[in-house]
């Protein structure tokens, strides 16, 4: 029996385990604490032997078997039936058998039913636990002495738990500590069974968790295979007669057709479609559909004189033309044939490309996309805008009145506010002051490095100009000034009591020589920019003549400084400037400040210290810029030969772009071929300026020309500014690829002063 039991145990181990533990618990001690119970279970399992099973009382064994019977459990019954002989008869009984015993107390016989043990079909997982609180958060019992209640409603006390040291010692001492896990329900460590450990191992190694499961079981053939074939027919009825007798009804139908054929009602094998010829009829006699007909395909061009078999002789190609025609690709040819003259009609041969041409026409008809185009039939001259004649827009400079020669490339000029003097500087460091009308040089200064910028102070009461050279700005006073003006100038540039120096020391040093060493030769005031800021190549005055902005080639903060003459103070308006600052300008009326970087022009409000707008001229490299005296318009010129006119109230994009366009038509060999071109500057634009009074502006370029424009701006917002090209002034030479470097207007007259790379400075008069 033991052997049998073991056999069965091996087959159904896991199932058995459940039974085992439950029966075991019940039998031994129901009220046993889980720890002990676990220990005992442990022992039994670890032994792997079930000798104590026979020691269990018969009742339990019987009960087991009975329950299995009720379940209809398979194989085990056979083994256990032998053990429980007496219960065999009652196999079909649902309830367990009662026993009649003599009561100890009363001495009367009484019927005792065995205790009902909830078993396999009921949820055994909850049965075996003594704690019956269910699946609740166990921390509710944290500060209570018990952990729940058992089946009888008695509290289950918390097992004694050691402190952390005990725990640690336990793990060290107890060799099985690593196989135990904390059970929340009992608040104690519970050793895992070997099955559970095996399950964990299997999961860990990605095996099938069920040790019993065999994935490679041999198939069992139940209905197929040898000896199981079906041999009996489904029906034993004999084959009907109609299977082999011809159909009467079919015959009748066929005969009907045969009769029809014989009578000629049906013509067999009449070809229905193959030989049908198209039948024409009056297709257009019915009313046509309402829709418009599809557009007809364009007709091919009609033949011209050149296609004649006997054309006039001038149509015949010369040898040169013939060669050219033959060399051209067939698609590029203007005509698909060469004119040819035959003396007589009978000598005209067949045209070899006839079929090819017809085919090409058909390809055009069904494969070429067709587009309807509107043909303009206008005179091209009407497209040229009608502008007033330059003659009606006089005065503007038209001729060169005089030329002042510098020894080297003259880079900068400035005209005095009264319009009588010109001061010019060159690369060698020479600054000359001369009269605009006669060109007589009055004074010459000499500086160490080259002159980057010269700008006359716009004040009327004082008279001086600033020369930018070599990290410094020098304020020079022209000679022969009236006494009052001279005094005012001195007061401005070298005041007797200097203004207080600002708290924060500026890197810009203002210096004035001591009063006894003052001469005409030396500057009265020198503003030394921080070293390394390079040549100041642009200087711009505020209209009131107190503030002056300078731009240097190098240095921090974009090289931009704003100097205040009265306070002898310089400040850098920008902490950091995006891009490479080319130019700066003061707005003529408002406290606005224009800064041109390489590609953008930014407009700042100086009083509020914020960016107003960014203008996008679309020029690769801005070279020059000027603002209209009204303050609403700005022109920007670039090294890429473009001039942009901005209406500041309108948009960030230019209102008008003037650019170089050159078109050449070189047609044929005869003199009638037209060659025309029109262009704005053909090389980089160097300088631009609006006239302060007259509606004029001028631009100069590296191509050695100056272009003068009429630029009329209207007060009302609706009328666009009128720009009329007036005159191209030529007279400057181009040296080393540089042409006219700067143009300046004379403030009182429509006269223009221009400095060229050849060292010449021209005055253009109207």
């Amino acid at each position, binding site marked *: 029996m033991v052997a049998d039991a073991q056999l069965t145990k091996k087959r159904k181990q896991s199932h058995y385990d459940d039974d085992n533990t439950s029966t075991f618990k019940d039998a031994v001690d129901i009220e046993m604490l889980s720890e002990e119970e676990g220990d005992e279970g442990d022992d039994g399992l670890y032994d792997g032997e079930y000798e104590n099973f026979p020691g269990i009382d018969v009742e339990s064994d019987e009960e087991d078997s009975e329950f299995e019977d009720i379940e209809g459990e398979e194989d085990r019954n056979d083994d256990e039936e032998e053990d429980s002989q007496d219960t065999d008869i009652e196999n079909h009984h649902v309830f367990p058998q009662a026993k009649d015993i003599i009561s100890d107390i009363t001495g009367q016989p009484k019927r005792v039913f065995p205790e009902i043990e909830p078993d396999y079909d009921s949820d055994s997982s909850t049965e075996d636990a003594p704690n019956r609180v269910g699946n609740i958060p166990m921390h509710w019992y944290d500060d209570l002495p018990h952990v729940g209640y058992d089946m009888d409603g008695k509290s289950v006390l918390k097992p004694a738990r050691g402190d952390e040291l005990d725990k640690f010692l336990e793990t060290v001492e107890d060799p099985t500590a690593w196989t135990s896990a904390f059970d929340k329900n009992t608040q104690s460590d519970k050793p895992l069974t070997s099955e559970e450990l095996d399950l964990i191992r299997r999961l860990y190694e990605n095996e099938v968790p069920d040790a019993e499961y065999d994935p490679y079981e041999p198939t069992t053939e139940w209905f197929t295979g040898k000896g199981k074939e079906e041999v009996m027919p489904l029906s034993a009825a004999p084959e009907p007669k109609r299977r082999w007798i011809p159909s009467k009804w079919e015959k009748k139908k066929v005969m009907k057709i045969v009769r029809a054929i014989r009578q000629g009602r049906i013509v067999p094998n009449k070809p229905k479609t193959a030989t049908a010829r*198209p039948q024409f009829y009056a297709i257009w006699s019915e009313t046509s559909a309402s829709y418009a007909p599809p557009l007809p395909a364009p007709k091919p061009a009609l033949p011209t004189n050149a*296609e004649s078999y006997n054309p*006039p002789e001038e149509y015949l190609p010369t040898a040169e033309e013939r060669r050219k025609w033959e060399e051209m690709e067939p698609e590029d040819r203007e005509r698909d044939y060469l004119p040819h003259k035959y003396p*007589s009609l009978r000598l005209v041969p067949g045209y070899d490309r006839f079929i090819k041409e017809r085919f090409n026409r058909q390809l055009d008809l069904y494969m070429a996309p067709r587009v309807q185009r509107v043909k303009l039939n206008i005179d091209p001259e009407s497209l040229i805008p009608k502008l007033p004649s330059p003659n009606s827009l006089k005065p503007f400079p038209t001729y060169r009145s005089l030329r002042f020669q510098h020894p080297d490339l003259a880079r900068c000029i400035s005209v005095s506010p009264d319009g009588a003097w010109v001061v010019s500087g060159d690369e060698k460091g020479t600054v000359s002051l001369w009269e605009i009308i006669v060109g007589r040089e009055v004074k010459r200064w000499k500086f160490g490095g080259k002159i980057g910028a010269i700008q006359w102070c716009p004040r009327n009461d004082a008279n001086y100009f600033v020369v930018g050279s070599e990290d410094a700005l020098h304020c020079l006073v022209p000679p022969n000034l009236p006494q009052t003006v001279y005094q005012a100038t001195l007061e401005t540039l070298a005041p007797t009591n200097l203004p207080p120096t600002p708290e924060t020391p500026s890197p810009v040093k203002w210096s004035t020589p001591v009063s006894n060493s003052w001469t005409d030769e030396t500057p009265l005031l020198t503003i030394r920019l921080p070293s390394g800021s390079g040549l100041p190549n642009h200087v711009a005055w505020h209209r009131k003549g107190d503030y002056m902005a300078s731009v240097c080639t190098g240095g921090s903060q974009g090289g931009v400084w704003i100097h205040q003459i009265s306070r002898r103070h310089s400040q850098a308006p920008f902490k950091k400037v995006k891009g490479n600052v080319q130019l700066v300008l003061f707005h003529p009326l408002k406290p606005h400040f224009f800064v041109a970087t390489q590609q953008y022009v930014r407009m700042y409000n100086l009083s509020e210290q914020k960016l107003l707008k960014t203008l996008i001229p679309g020029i690769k490299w801005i070279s020059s810029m000027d603002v209209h005296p009204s303050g609403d318009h700005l022109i920007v010129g670039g090294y890429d030969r473009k001039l942009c006119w901005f209406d500041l109230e309108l948009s960030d994009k230019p209102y008008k772009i003037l650019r170089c366009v050159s078109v050449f038509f070189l047609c*044929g060999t*005869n003199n009638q071929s037209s060659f025309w071109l029109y262009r704005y500057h053909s090389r980089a634009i160097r300088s631009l300026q609006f006239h302060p009074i007259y509606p004029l502006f001028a631009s100069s370029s590296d191509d050695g020309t100056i272009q003068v424009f009429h630029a009329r701006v209207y007060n009302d917002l609706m009328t666009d500014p009128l720009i009329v090209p007036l005159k191209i002034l030529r007279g400057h030479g181009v040296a080393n690829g540089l042409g006219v470097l700067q143009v300046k207007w004379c403030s009182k007259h429509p006269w223009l002063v221009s400095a060229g790379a050849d060292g010449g400075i021209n005055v253009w008069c109207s």
Partner: protein
Amino acid sequence: MGRLRQKGKAGAAKAYVTRTVAIKKLQCSLADFRRLCILKGIFPREPRSRKKANKGSSAPTSFYYAKDIAYLAHEPVLRKLREHKAFAKKLSRAIGRGEWSDAKSLEENKPVYKLDHIIKERYPTFIDAVRDIDDALCMIFLFASLPSNSRVPPSLVENCTRLAAEWQLYVMHTRSLRKAFLSIKGVYYQAEIMDQHVTWLVPYQFTQNIPADVDVRVMLTFLELYQTLLGFILFKLYTDRGLVYPPPLDAKKDEGAAGIGAFVIQDTTQTSTRPIVKNKIVEVDGRLVTGKDVHHTIKSLAANTNTSTDASADVDRTGPETTQKHEEEEFIAQPSKTQQVASLPTLHSLEALPSSSNTSLFSPYAFFLSRETSRPIVEFLIRSFGGRIGWPASSGSGSPFDESDDSITHVIIDRPLFERPDETPEERERRSHRKYIQPQWVVDCINAGKILLEAPYAQGVTELPPHLSPFGEFDGAYDPLSTANGNGAIDEAVGSESDMNEDEEEVEDQDTEASGALNAISVVTDDPASLRAAELVAEASGMDSTSFERKVAKSRRKSKKHDDAEEREKNMNKMMMSNKKRKLYEKMKYSQSKRADERATLEEKKREIQKQKRMAGKS
């Protein structure tokens, strides 16, 4: 917030489909799609933005309107094409299995599509159809002249020949031919039908071979459509005219290569067949007009106007035509005898309006073709303008008269002059009555609308007058005739001026006179012809060439100065043009200058040729 718009759900992306998508939608092969497009007249479109239409891709594809493709989807022809595909499978299966009778019955019941509905769809009215038959006629005439082979079955060539002949018969019958042009590609004809100008090109009679790079399938598909279209048009034209369509074919004549003559024009009211050539005999006052009579008339006319019309190049002979008109009038006069409404335009008054061309130009004449001339061309031309024509038996049967006929006035001959040593006096007599002309004379007469002088076109003349296109060219193109006249005018002017100079020479000073001539120069310095005239004047007045040139240069400079200022102003204004206008302007200027250049080149060449000719004449 507006509704979210998904990309590719509206606009160009929806309106256009690529060819591949179209084929996928129609579930047919590319060849079938092409066939459908040809038959239905559907062609690719050019979207304004290819990228937008192709969902962002700029790959080179052809686009169709999505609606066009949807319109193709329920086309009966497409269904037939699918049926044909199934049929082809069945047939090849039957043949592969050796089921011959099945294959035969399949072949007999093969699906064939009809194009009638397509014709009606594409050309809702008859005028639409007539407007669009240029290409159809060209193809029909081309295939009529092709040799048949495996790809071009003989039945097709035969059908094309028949259609071509029917068309020509109609044009001849209605006298609607207007212009003709002998080009190096073939002969262009232009007819006026239903107020539409129909132009077609007929190749010269040589065997054409289909080149290898031509897809015959495409041509045959077009031809299929064109045959049907032309069939319906001819049916309508013939029936509107009260003629039987199709005109019966005289098999015997056809055997003898009678060409157009083998068809018989038959009135629907009359049952008897009457060849058209029979009623072409001209009658005047009930008397037959023969070639001799015509010659007499011409001679008498010529004698009258001999002195005056010496210079004019041609003689207008309208005498016999009036009688012809008179004869035609009798048809119309009948209904309007009792009451006449003057205000209403009658058919007669409409016909009296100056027509663009004289349709009975050749009616007084009888022509005979020499055997080397192309009979189909000349016969068609002459009969379209009312002439009678005969030909030798070698050019085909059915000639109404033979060479010995006395009524022959012109012989169209295209071979060099040769001696006739063994000529009977009778033949010589006949020869003297006839004019021997080259075929170009016929075409030039038609294009000029009048009978030209025969002498420049006489037999054996190698330098025929140039044959010009009657269709004209664009405005301002080089006109070979006008420049010739212009030069003549200049020569005349120079002559008269120099005459005048001779008179004045005694009276006036040389200088003043020369300056007068130069004044003229300053006005017309641009025109090279007038410049030459002025140079001649100066030479006549005794100036040497260098001083003349200096003066010319001076005067030019003077005039230029003024022009230059204006020109410069304009050039500066060009700077202010917007980009769009500038591009348009450049384009227009480019095409203008190209045309002017072309013209100038031709004029230059012409001058060169004339100069050479003069040199040759002098030496």
